[in-house]
């Protein structure tokens, strides 16, 4: 009879343990591939701007002159488009995610190391 499947379920639930994951008491469940947020190894970046150009959300600003790379966390949709296009594979997605903020802007700013000797850089670019 129809009624009893649900009744059985409900009673089984009362007796059994709740399925709740108990976040935040217990840490969040994550997988290796989980797309939490974008990270950069700024040391490897060559400021080519490809990531910025392909970002569908215009979240990245790269400045070659200042050797800076910044991502707006309130814009990045964690889509990995930049990861895929980066020639230096210095971008990656990691499972940890950014928590909420009360005040925008929420921009992560990375200052790269000073430029290495000139000739090397030129070679890279060509």
């Amino acid at each position, binding site marked *: 009879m129809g009624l009893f499947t649900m009744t059985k379920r409900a009673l089984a639930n009362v007796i059994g343990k709740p399925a709740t994951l108990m976040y935040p008491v217990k840490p969040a469940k994550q997988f290796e591939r989980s797309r939490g947020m974008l990270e950069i190894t700024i040391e490897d970046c060559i400021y080519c701007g490809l990531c910025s150009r392909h970002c569908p959300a215009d979240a990245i600003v790269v400045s070659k002159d200042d050797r800076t790379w910044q991502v707006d966390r*309130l814009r990045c949709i*964690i889509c990995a488009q930049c990861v895929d296009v980066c020639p230096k594979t210095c971008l990656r997605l990691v499972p940890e*995610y950014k928590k909420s*903020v*009360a005040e925008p802007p929420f921009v992560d700013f990375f200052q790269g190391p000073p430029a290495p000797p000139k000739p090397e850089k030129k070679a890279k670019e060509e």
Partner: protein
Amino acid sequence: MANITKSPWIIHYDGSSCNGCDIEVLACLTPLYDIERFGIINTGNPKHADIFLITGGINYQNVDIVKNTYEQMVDPKVVVAVGICATSGGVFRECYNIMGGVNEVIPVDVYVPGCAVRPEAIIDGVVQALGILEEKRAQLEKEQGGAKK
């Protein structure tokens, strides 16, 4: 006397989100995340709600709705923008029909990034909102106390 932080009721409105964030908000209610542990109920009625969860950006048709819903809520209240769309307009920022993030029309208290936001992030956001809610309550109490004298 801060029961408000023990019993924050939420209302959820889908601005012009893609549903991704919506279903994650709903997922928060379900057994695995169970935000009722914090006394949270999804009331669906602005007059009963303390926290306004908005997913998705604001478009030209729902701007009135968002404003109206916000106005219908009873003080103290906080607004949580859930998802990239709600915080900044996200990928749709440049669409002709999108005005931008929620803060374009109503004051937002907490911004929760993510596309789609993870339920855990929503819980974090709401917990952060509780602090703000309590501040607002204390503020309101002061004002009303002042008004009475």
